[in-house]
């Protein structure tokens, strides 16, 4: 299963849609994408993980790295995730306290922080 990455603007936010498997092999592509987006001035990022099939600690690390990057520009990085198996990974590692996690993209877009 390949990793798919697509981004688009939604008002002043940038939605990055991630699909497939984010693991030690594919996570560098996600890291590159986040670095590229921040480099282009996208500082309000919503990572939509609705279509993620698998996520490991490398993927979590990349998301934490992305959060640090946008924060250094006073930006934000929130997540859309409604799958229990993925949410469980965030809970076990305590990262539910680090990322704003929303059930749906609509909810994430309505959150004005």
């Amino acid at each position, binding site marked *: *299963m390949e990793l798919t990455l697509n981004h688009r603007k939604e008002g002043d936010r940038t939605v990055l849609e991630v699909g497939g498997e984010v*693991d*030690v*092999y594919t996570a560098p592509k996600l890291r590159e994408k986040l670095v590229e987006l921040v480099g282009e001035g996208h500082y309000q990022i919503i990572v939509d993980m609705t279509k993620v099939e698998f996520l*490991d*600690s490398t993927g979590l690390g990349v998301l934490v*790295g992305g959060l640090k990057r946008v924060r250094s520009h006073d930006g934000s990085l929130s997540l859309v995730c409604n799958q229990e198996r993925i949410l469980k*990974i965030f809970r*076990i590692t*305590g990262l539910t306290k680090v990322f704003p996690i929303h059930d749906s993209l609509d909810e994430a877009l309505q959150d004005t922080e």
Partner: protein
Amino acid sequence: MMPDVELLVPPGAQYVGLARLVVTAAARQAGMTNDRLEDLKIAVSEATANAIQAHQRTGDDGPVQLQFGPTGNGHFGVTIADAGLPPEGSAPGAVGDRVEGGLSLTLIRGLADVVDVAGGSGTSVHMRFIVGGSPARRVVEDP
């Protein structure tokens, strides 16, 4: 009791996905339920990735070894062994913004029912999962 299956995995990140598929298929065949298969899949992936990275750090071209199978007491066991060096992050005074190492072990410990980590010339991680149990039911075992 059936003998374990052995799988030798070359030390490349591209093989982690294959390793988790093979182990998950064996556990499914052993009757593991879907929820637990998800736990197993992540824990195996983490431990295999760590083992592969240990070989890469050491410059060891040899494969990492996975041994797995039903343990006969309602558990499914997986042992993942490498011959490499432990991560730099575990050394005192190590710096860097990579947080994966710590998260990885947290995940393994949070997902498997029993975890034993043994050091030596390399690292060996043994995990057990209750085949039919819910993830919330933990077997408490003192080290």
